[in-house]
Every structure is written in C-alpha cells, then in structure tokens.
C-alpha cells in the first residue's frame, strides 16, 4: 500500500511539472521596456504608428525589397506563422520596415509583400522618422557599395524580429531562422496574457 502511494505521488509530480508558468522559447528582454512608437507610412500610403496597434501582439522586422535572401526568408516565415496561428492571427500584426527608402516606394513595398502575405504591413517614411525607428530597434542599417555586383549596393541590416506585447512593451527577440513552431507558441502565450 505504502509503495503504491509513493508511486502514485511520483506520477502526479511528473504530470504537474509540465504545467508551470509558460517558458518562452525565444530570447526574452528582461525587464521588458517600452517599445518606440514609430510614425511611418504603409504600402497604401496610410500613416501608421505602433500606438495605433495597441492590443495586438506586434512583430517588427527590418529589410528591403531588393534583398533576395534574408528578407524573403523572414517574410515567408511570417506568412507561415500567420497561417499556423489560425484564428489567433486576428490579434497579431506583422510590420516590415524598409532600410532602403531610396528604392522602396509604397507601391514597390506593396507589390513585394503581396507575394508573401497581404496582412503584412510594409512601412517607409521620412528619413528622420526612419532613422529614429532604426536606432530604437537596433536595426543598424548601413549602405554598402557593391562594385562587383549588378546589385550596385546592398543594405547591411539586422535580421532579428522584435516582438511587442499587447501593452506596447518589447518582450522577445527572434533570431534569424528560428523555429516557426516555437515562435507560434510564444505569440500564443503573449495573446493569452
């Protein structure tokens, strides 16, 4: 009887151990800080700000439409995340901010994101507003001339995705090529907070 009881308790402990507070899979910002309230223009030339998206979980990432490798890989992941979230996607906004405003007009941004997912918001803006946004999110975009390439120049940039919670706090950083299912789970946890 006593041995049976001990065995029973062990089973219960194992079951309970899987049920603590949620542990985020991506890098957590501790403590979370207030996310910069960008003021930019979207692909339909409509002014957008982070504060207007309050109440949603917002994923912010930087890139440019001439970028053939890193940016499409991230955009394709964003589309996949939206699909996996199902109905929860209504509480999530994906924001792609250009680091190449010289070439990326709203019309070009629109054509580019349409190929992946029209729910993705693509933003540009005046140089000052963009610079302030890059600085706040550590996007560190640098133009690099490429005389050996037909591309002429590339924009060096960070490929990290910043996750802002429903209260406008920066909570998570997603590294390039992170696991999509991990990110979906993290986003669902933030939606359910």
């Amino acid at each position: 009887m006593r041995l049976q009881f001990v065995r029973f308790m062990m089973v219960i402990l194992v079951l309970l151990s899987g049920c603590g507070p949620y542990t985020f899979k991506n890098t957590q910002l501790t403590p979370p800080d207030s996310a910069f309230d960008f003021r930019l223009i979207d692909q339909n030339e409509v002014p957008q700000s982070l504060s207007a998206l309050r109440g949603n979980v917002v994923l912010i990432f930087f890139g440019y439409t001439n970028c053939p490798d890193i940016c499409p890989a991230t955009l394709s992941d964003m589309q996949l995340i939206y699909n996996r979230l199902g109905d929860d996607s209504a509480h999530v906004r994906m924001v792609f901010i250009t680091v190449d405003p010289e070439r990326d007009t709203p019309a070009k941004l629109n054509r580019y994101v349409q190929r992946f997912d029209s729910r993705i918001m693509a933003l540009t803006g005046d140089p000052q507003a963009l610079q302030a946004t890059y600085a706040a999110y550590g996007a560190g975009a640098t133009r690099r001339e490429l005389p050996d390439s037909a591309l002429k120049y590339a924009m060096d940039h960070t490929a990290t995705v910043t996750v802002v919670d429903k209260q406008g706090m920066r909570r998570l950083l997603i590294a390039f090529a992170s696991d999509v299912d991990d990110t979906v789970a993290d986003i669902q946890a933030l939606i359910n907070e």
Partner: protein
Amino acid sequence: MSRLLLLLCVCASLLASCSTTDTQGGMHDSMQSGDMATMMPMPNMNAPVVATVGDIRLSDAWVRTANQGDNSAGYFIINNSGNADTLIGVASDIATSTELHTVEKSDGMMRMRPVNDGIGIPSQGVQLLQPGAYHIMFIGLKRDLNTGERIEVTLTFAQAGDVTVPLSVR
C-alpha cells in the same frame, strides 16, 4: 484510502487549471500540411538528385517566389564523391544578372556579398546553398516566379565542368 481520494481530487483540479499543453496540442492540429512546403527549410538531405556532372550530384534545388523586376535567390545541396572542386560560375536567362553570393554574419548584422573566388566543395563532402548563407542571386527578374513553376540555371564547376539544374519555385 479516503485521504488518497482527496489527494486525487486536488491533483485533478490542479491539472485542470493547466492549459499550456492543451493550447499547443490545438496548434499542431490546426497545422495544414500545405504549410510545410514554405517552412524555413533545413536542407532536405534525402531529396532526390536532380542533376549530376562528374562526381557532383545536386539535390533539393529551389528558388524563392518573386515578382518581375525584383530579385530572388536559389538554393541546393551539392554532394561530391570525388576530389575537391569549386563552383565558379552560374548563368540563367530568367534574370538580367545571376551571381554567386554569400551572407556574412557579424555583430548581429547580416551582410550580403558577391562571392568572387567561387564556392569551395570539399572532396568526398557536401556544400549547402541555403537562406542566410551561400546562394545563387538572381538580379532583375525578367518575369514573375510563381510557386510550382520550374526554372533552369547552368552551373560551372572548375573541375567537373558545366551542368544544367532545374530549380522549383517555392
């Protein structure tokens, strides 16, 4: 014995309040099999060989969907059962310019660069072209690349020579 029953009830109610595992189960249920095709790809080492030249075998060859006038990138796995070789050139008629590129990662920055001295392929080894690393860069696409289509590129290896490879658009 009644103590055991009481304990059981307490544990059951504790477990009932624990929903994280349920949420995750639901998430996987709602996953559509069609999604897998667009998933951030780990190269599929078991993909069928789509082209061979000398000791070189190419597999899992694909190019990213993109608009006419924009750029795209192509990827594949190179398997080499012979001596060391180098991928020194690439040509295609779907873009104004086709180049070998790589991405250098430092201090959290991603820096895309043309590869000038070719992509080395170790003897009896494997070289991967994949997102965030070595890739074929198509600059100025002459037409839209739509998912499910197929394009061709010609690769030039220093030792093995030229080979035409079909890339599927994903």
